[in-house]
């Protein structure tokens, strides 16, 4: 039994580190943008190691319908290098925070020629094995509504109406009950004063607002009687 446990733990310890050493890179899947606007392409990574000082980010761009990629951004040894010759010259800005594992870039003044796939590759030495992640950019004149949004909106509105109706129903019941309670307490109070010594009637509910309303009603009745 013991040998079996020892063997299993050795096996697990042997397997697990190999699987956790790969770096995982996250970008969006698709981004929609308006013509002439700016877009922030986000890229972050997950690594089991601490963020090293030699962390590198690089972005490459592949136009739609082309098979070649061109490199447009590189960050290494604490310095960011942007495109100064290619299709994005003077339009790329580094807005990420390498210390927080963020390698996002900002692309300004978009054009229809910028439609394509942007690939982010991050390395965190000694953790360098990983797959680069790509985000597809689509530039529109007017941003279209996505297919599921209208359906979701209809469902949300109907459910919201239902919740509203339920809330209003319970609110009306609460208000009507409170009104009935305060009226009955004031009637009860008059009868007791006309009779012998008044003794404190126990409040049927422990609700402080209801008791306050009842006592304020009582005080109003008394002051009215005194004025008379």
């Amino acid at each position, binding site marked *: 039994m013991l040998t079996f446990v020892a063997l299993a733990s050795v096996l697990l310890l042997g397997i697990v580190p190999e699987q956790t050493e790969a770096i995982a890179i996250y970008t969006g899947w698709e981004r929609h943008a308006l013509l002439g606007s700016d877009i922030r392409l986000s890229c972050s990574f997950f690594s089991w190691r601490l963020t090293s000082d030699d962390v590198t980010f690089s972005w490459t761009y592949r136009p739609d319908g082309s098979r070649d990629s061109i490199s447009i951004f590189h960050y290494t040894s604490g310095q960011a290098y942007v495109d100064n010759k290619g299709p994005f010259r003077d339009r790329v800005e580094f807005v990420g925070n390498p210390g927080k594992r963020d390698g996002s870039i900002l692309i300004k003044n978009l054009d229809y020629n910028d439609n394509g796939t942007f690939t982010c590759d991050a390395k965190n030495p000694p953790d360098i094995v990983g797959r680069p992640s790509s985000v597809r950019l689509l530039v529109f004149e007017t941003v279209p509504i996505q297919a599921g949004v*209208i*359906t979701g909106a209809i*469902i949300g509105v*109907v*459910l919201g109406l239902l919740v509203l109706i339920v809330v209003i129903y319970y609110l009306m019941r609460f208000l009507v009950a409170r009104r009935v309670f305060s009226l009955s307490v004031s009637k009860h109070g008059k009868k007791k004063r006309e009779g012998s010594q008044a003794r404190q009637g126990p409040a049927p509910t422990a609700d402080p607002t209801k008791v306050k309303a009842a006592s304020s009603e009582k005080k109003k009745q008394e002051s009215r009687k005194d004025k008379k």
Partner: protein
Amino acid sequence: MLILLAGIFGIHIIGIIILLVATIDNVWWMTDEISTDVWARWIQTNGVWNLTDLPTGSHYPQDYLQAVQASSVLACIFSIIGIFVFVAQLFTLEKGQRFTISGAFQLLACLCIMIAAAIYTDRFHLDEKNGWYGHCFILAWIAFSLTFISSIIYFVLRKKTA
């Protein structure tokens, strides 16, 4: 008494399952190569099924499609809320009272699935000769009748024992 309760519970659960299958599974309209429903379309090319978007055009109106999607999802949601409300009412209702709220939810679910199935029948595939309605479409209409019967039972039933 317990058998009646189990039967009513069973009808409701079967209604929920049929609603879920009709909404999620991909078989509203079929031909030899395509299999489509309200969300996407499967096209078979060279023995491999590919998932594609629904066609947009005058014979596939977008707004009616969204109405069908929304109301079939709403029918599922109302039916599922209804089963929880029924179980709650089983324990909190006083003797002799009717299960009105559960019946109301089931009726709402019935209404929604009727809207979905009716719009689909009336507005889609009007002039497509080759092709037939798949099993999910039939299940949607069966779900309509099941939820209707279920809601009538809830409106008529009275709580016997406390």
